[in-house]
């Protein structure tokens, strides 16, 4: 398999050379957290942890938007999706995430018009084609999805489409990094920054974070060579006692990000405190529609009843999302919790840490060595 501009970042020998350099450079034990769930999946899919020396450990961060969407918000989605006039549009990952009373897949099976779309613009198209229906898009995501969601709302206004609204559950990454670093139990020595988030937001804001908490942050891409290089850059900084922001993913990320996208986000959304599933309320970590765009807010339009949610007592996804529990050490992993019957969102989402280990490496611990082994 080779694909231009992807193939070269999956080239085994190039990755092996970087890994050899990590082995040479790392003299002390270091713990590095990759923030983004896409990176977690690539690391597990390609078995990169298995190649690293024992003294370089990876922790998986909270960067799975589906996983951190509060169950209460999904409950709002279930109620709205069940309304006969509504076409409820969502990314596929959200269908099977358990809330309190069920999941979207079950609402769909009971007659709710739930559709999987790839973009909020597809949902806007549906609204145009079905003027007699109410089209609601479940706007879940980090900085990466916010521009397109903002664009959809701006377009709805420009085109005078009134039967369209967003159920907004947008969150921001840097406040979550602060939350993790502030925790007395924080074990993170350095971060791999989420490349695609920084493509939108840039990394100017990270300098203060690196200085304040004395952690190196390396903005990193998603292919095996990107990840290996990001880890190497981070280890080099740690060994030299540096706490700087570096950009491994320079083919995509500019220091000031994408100014047009940022402008669009801030035109349509404003920053608020937000609860994260498994992490609690994080100050300044969420986006809501600004006053002048509130008419497109599905929560206001449909006023769903509040359903208090407590996560399954068995589910420890909060600890997983904070990098405090290896999914494979959870007693329910692969037992009562599987992708078909998940206890928590981290087992469902294509960016969830538990799903990554289950899909690619759940045999790892059956050897009893605790290391990802070759069967």
């Amino acid at each position, binding site marked *: *398999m*080779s*694909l*231009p501009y*992807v193939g070269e970042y*999956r*080239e*085994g020998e190039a*990755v*092996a050379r970087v890994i050899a350099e990590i082995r040479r450079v790392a003299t002390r034990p270091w713990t590095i957290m990759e923030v983004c769930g896409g990176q977690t999946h690539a690391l*597990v*899919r*390609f*078995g*990169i942890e*298995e*190649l690293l020396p024992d003294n370089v450990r990876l922790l998986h961060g909270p960067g799975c938007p589906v996983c951190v969407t509060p169950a209460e918000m999904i409950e709002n989605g279930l109620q709205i999706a069940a309304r006969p006039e509504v076409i409820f549009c969502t990314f*596929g990952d959200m*269908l*099977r995430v358990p809330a309190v009373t069920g999941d979207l*897949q*079950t609402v*769909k*099976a*009971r007659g709710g018009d739930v559709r999987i779309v*790839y973009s909020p613009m*597809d949902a806007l198209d549906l609204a145009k084609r079905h003027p007699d229906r109410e089209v609601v898009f479940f706007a879940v995501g980090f900085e990466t999805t916010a521009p397109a969601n903002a664009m959809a709302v701006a377009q709805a206004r420009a085109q005078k489409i009134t039967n369209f609204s967003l159920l907004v559950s947008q969150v921001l990454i840097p406040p979550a990094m602060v939350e993790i670093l502030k925790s007395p139990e924080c074990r993170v020595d350095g971060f791999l920054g989420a490349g695609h988030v920084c493509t939108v937001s840039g990394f100017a804001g990270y300098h203060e974070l690196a200085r304040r908490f004395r952690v190196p942050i390396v903005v990193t891409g998603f292919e*095996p060579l990107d990840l290996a290089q990001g880890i190497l850059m981070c280890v080099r900084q740690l060994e030299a006692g540096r706490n700087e922001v570096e950009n491994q993913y320079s083919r995509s990320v500019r220091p000031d990000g994408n100014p047009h996208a940022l402008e669009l986000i801030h035109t349509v959304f404003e920053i608020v405190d937000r609860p994260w599933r498994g992490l609690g309320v994080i100050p300044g970590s969420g986006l809501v529609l600004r006053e002048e765009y509130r008419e497109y807010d599905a929560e206001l339009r449909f006023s769903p009843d509040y359903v208090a949610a407590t996560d399954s007592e068995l589910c420890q996804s909060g600890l997983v999302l904070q990098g405090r529990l290896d999914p494979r050490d959870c007693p329910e992993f*692969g*037992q*009562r919790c*599987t*992708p*078909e*019957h998940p206890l928590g969102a981290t087992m469902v989402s*294509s960016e969830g840490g538990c799903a990554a280990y*289950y*899909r*690619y*490496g*759940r*045999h790892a611990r*059956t*050897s009893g060595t605790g290391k*990802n082994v*070759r*069967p």
Partner: protein
Amino acid sequence: MKNPRTELPPAVQCPLPWRHSHIVMAHGGGGRMMHDLIEGVFSPLSTGNGARHDGTIVGCGTERIAYTTDTFVVSPLFFPGGDIGRLAVFGTVNDLAMCGARPEALSAGFILEDGFDLELLQRIVASMSAAAAEVGVRIVTGDTKVVERGKGDGLYINTSGIGRVRAGVEIGPARVRKGDAIILSGDLGRHGIALMAVREGLQFETKIQSDCANLWPAVDELLQNPVDVHCLRDLTRGGLASALVEIAEASDSHLTIREGTIPVSDAVLGACEILGLDPLHVANEGRFCVFVPADQAEATVKALRSHEVCSGACIVGEVGADLSGVVSLRTVLGTDRLIDMPSGEQLPRIC
């Protein structure tokens, strides 16, 4: 021999507790949830031989007859590289071929929706007829039902088929042996991506055609060669991953494949990157995998490549002995990971 699944405590071993109160779309996805539905709900119906194969072989006097059935709900009815009629003939023919059976006769059942365009129906029937002629199989019996408008999406087709299995031909997961080579008949993912592109209105630079094809001539060639075919499986919903996991579980063996050897066209790979899909999970309609003794692998590849639909045939892995009932993949980085069936629905109504 270790099997991570059977090492789980008894409470979570198959059959899994049946936790759904309703059927959901994911139960039709060809992945783990469909597998659980079949094991958990439909198993009382089956008095077959339990061989977990694409069809079953029934004795009929001195003859051995393969029998299989398949239902087609694909949407849209016409797609790049095929249509529901062609799919309905080839799908059942291919299931017979995977039993090592020469397709002899098919039945065709139609569920039509009130208001369905007659001209479309005629085009589909013509396509079925052409496909059957291409295979050399007769459509000998059929049935028609019409349902109210809104109760069926235009047209559904069921086909079933019988085929003759020559003496001495024994094909199935039970014959998979340690050391067997795993051969793939061509590149992956064309059908699924072609359907997805049409359905989602995705525009790619290259138009991706479904691989929908008749596989019997290539299988016939192998059976006429001095190749000892141990197992055959066509790759449909759930892709190569589901096919291999089913065989690994049914044969209690450890299958290993090498990522760098698995052919995927740049167009499909690019689409998978954009859509976040794994080519190993994407549906095919004209690809199959073959298990043969390692020393016959090259001859098998050569024989397959003489057929246009198998021109991309290659060796992608082998049957190992370290674990049982699992499939693992050696990545391009030299690490290993487990391959599992996709959980549920990747794309509904793909065949």
